[in-house]
């Protein structure tokens, strides 16, 4: 990849508190099937309403890992090179229920929480249906 100007332009400390551009996606049932095949996670709660309801869920839910993977794009789009990501952790606070017709709208946001040396810690947010679906979502990236 061509070397591009880094978004922090030599002053990483000034990044603390910076909000990164957010994004909004719509998860659809066919995307869940696609993600199941791509990730090899064939848990039926991600494609069968019957299986989901047996666990007390209102219907098919998105893979937590799909939400996690899609959320990270807020960070990788900003930082350019995804290999700068050194750790990533989330709690799945609430399942993302994917309607068979309308799908599920998920809105992602991110903010630089702290810069220490050449590592930035970024907090991620994800909301679906007016509620937060991730908590304690945190990404560490190398800035050097």
């Amino acid at each position, binding site marked *: *990849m061509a070397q591009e100007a880094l978004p922090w332009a030599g002053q990483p400390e000034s990044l603390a508190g910076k909000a990164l551009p957010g994004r909004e*996606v719509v998860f659809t049932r066919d*995307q869940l099937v*696609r*993600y199941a*095949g*791509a*990730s*090899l*996670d*064939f*848990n*039926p*709660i991600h494609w069968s309403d019957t*299986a989901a309801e*047996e*666990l*007390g*869920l209102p219907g098919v839910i998105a*893979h*937590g*890992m*799909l939400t*996690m*993977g*899609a959320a*990270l*794009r807020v960070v*990788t789009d900003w930082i*350019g*090179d*995804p*290999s700068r*990501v*050194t*750790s*990533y*952790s*989330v*709690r*799945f606070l609430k*399942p993302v229920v994917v309607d068979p017709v309308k799908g599920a709208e998920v809105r992602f946001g991110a903010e630089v929480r702290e810069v220490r040396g050449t590592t930035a810690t970024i907090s991620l947010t994800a909301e679906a249906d007016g509620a937060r679906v991730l908590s*304690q979502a945190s990404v560490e990236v190398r800035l050097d």
Partner: protein
Amino acid sequence: MGRTYPPTAPYQVSQAKITEFAVAIGDGDNPAYQGPGAIAPPTFAAVLSAAAWNAIFTDPDLDLALSRTVHVDQRFEFIRPLRPGDDVRAQLTIDNVRARGSMALITFSVKLTTTDGEDVAVATSTLMHQEAK
């Protein structure tokens, strides 16, 4: 608790699988995931971990079923990105099990290592498992 399973057979990362995964997470156009020097998306580590998850779901001592689990939390430590051609084994260790009535919270970590012995990533997951009614 503390149980470590044998590592999975080596899985060879391919450009085709990377592309399939990048498209599935909605990032199929990202130049980092294609062409010479391509890497896998960071959460691609989950593809390799999935094979190791089979160890706990086929362990007769545990009596767990994937269909009765919900993912509670997930952490990745990335040592270096995965690339096409990497031959990777995944080894699962159960870190903690907490029972809550008919539910159990199971925390385990999966270490990804190349067949050359290079550590690539560690994926730590907590699943909530519900006993069959």
